[in-house]
């Protein structure tokens, strides 16, 4: 940690959590290709305010997440903006894997037998990280699956698209308000790889540039200008800014 940035790598099939201050940013890099990062966001001051995928999608008329999109809370505020993205499509409608799915797809590998190479699942990962802040099953919501894509056919059928992300691809999130981040690197629930996919992700924390009047996310849609206004009002009133 050099006071301005910190970088660390999380192996595949693991979980972590932390709080991002408004004005900081987080870069996620897919180290070897094929990564998946499940993520949930909460307001640390009041975790009843949480990432809301339906609001995020309908406010921006999008099904996928990529550069220019903002991740909204259920209170009409922006947790973070996607300021850069070399991937192009991230999923937020397929949810997360659970123990039963993992066992069905790849067989159960217990901790007793496999130690650090056990097959952790996304739901348990979220429950463990959430419980550190007093959150439980009732606080779960639709999560983001960074680096993963599930395409949609005209009849609504969805299909996982392997190879959506390659080695070295990255996405940058700029936090617009203080945000509790729960994340895991467990497989996407629709991943059909032959073996339990265990792909590492690098996290780089740093300070963001101030949001300028010409900011891409601020201007990508008229809705986002209003989302930023709501967030600014919140920061003003809560002395967070």
């Amino acid at each position, binding site marked *: 940690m050099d006071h301005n940035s910190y970088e660390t790598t999380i192996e595949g099939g693991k979980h972590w959590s932390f709080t991002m201050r408004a004005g900081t940013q987080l870069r996620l890099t897919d180290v070897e290709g094929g990564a998946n990062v499940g993520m949930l966001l909460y307001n640390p001051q009041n975790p*009843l305010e949480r990432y*809301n*995928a*339906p*609001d995020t*999608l*309908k*406010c921006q*008329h*999008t*099904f*996928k997440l990529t550069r220019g999109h903002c991740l*909204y809370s*259920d*209170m*009409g*505020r922006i947790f973070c903006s996607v300021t850069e993205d070399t991937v192009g*499509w991230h999923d937020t*409608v*397929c*949810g*997360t894997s*659970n123990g*039963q799915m993992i066992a069905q797809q790849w067989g159960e590998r217990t901790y007793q037998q496999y130690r650090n190479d056990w097959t952790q699942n996304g739901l348990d990962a979220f429950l463990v990280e959430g419980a550190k802040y007093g959150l*439980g*099953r*009732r*606080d*779960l*919501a*639709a*999560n983001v699956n960074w680096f993963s894509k599930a*395409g*949609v*056919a*005209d*009849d*609504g*059928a*969805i*299909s996982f698209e392997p190879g959506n992300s390659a080695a070295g691809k990255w996405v940058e999130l700029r936090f617009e308000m203080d945000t509790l981040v729960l994340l895991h690197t467990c497989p996407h*629930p*629709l991943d059909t790889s032959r073996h339990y996919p265990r792909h590492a992700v690098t996290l780089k924390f740093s300070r963001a540039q101030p949001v300028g009047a010409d900011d891409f996310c601020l201007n990508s849609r008229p*809705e*986002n200008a*209003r*989302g930023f*206004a*709501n967030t600014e009002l919140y920061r003003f009133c809560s002395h967070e800014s």
Partner: protein
Amino acid sequence: MKSPVRSELLPAEARYREVIGAGSYWINTLAKDEVLRIVDVEGNQSADTLFFNAADISDRYSAVDTIRAQRNVYLTTGSSLLSTSGNVLAEIVADTVGRHDTLGGACAAESNTVRYALEKRTMHSCRDSYLLAAAQHDHLGIGKRDLGHNINFFMNVPVTRDGGLTFADGLSGPGQYVEMRAGMDIIVLISNCPQLNNPCNAYNPTPLEVLIWNFDVR
């Protein structure tokens, strides 16, 4: 679009019938195997619906698990409505429309400010109806944290191949309905959507009707 599937159940044999005005909520318990019909009385009215396992409020409707399990973003006859624990809360057994939304979520005063204008912050919304229902039935133990992502029966939200989301005119019409059989004892919470700012209610919120049949009728 799936073909319409009509029901053979007769309204005269329903054990319960009630009209829900736009902007009001309806909360009720269904026993396992009972059948609930929601009727779009005048057409193009969104029924924002949540389901809970009556024995365990934490086990509630999960849009993402439902979508993932059926590998399709739209709901219609044959769709199993799954809970966060993977239980079948209900199955859609009849549907005269052919497609219902579970991506768009419920309207809220706060999301209205983002979608339309900051000054819309005092307009009525589905989430306000949900919160009032929870507060007026606090013996059920449902609160804001339990409000997951709902189903919008009769609403049409097509997804495009390039990843866009559009809010189209409803496919529904006067008298269209959707019917579901409870897979376990469930609590059903419906907000009859008061939204005035988009075509989900054709800019004219109208009544819904709900009917319930005992399982021994079938």
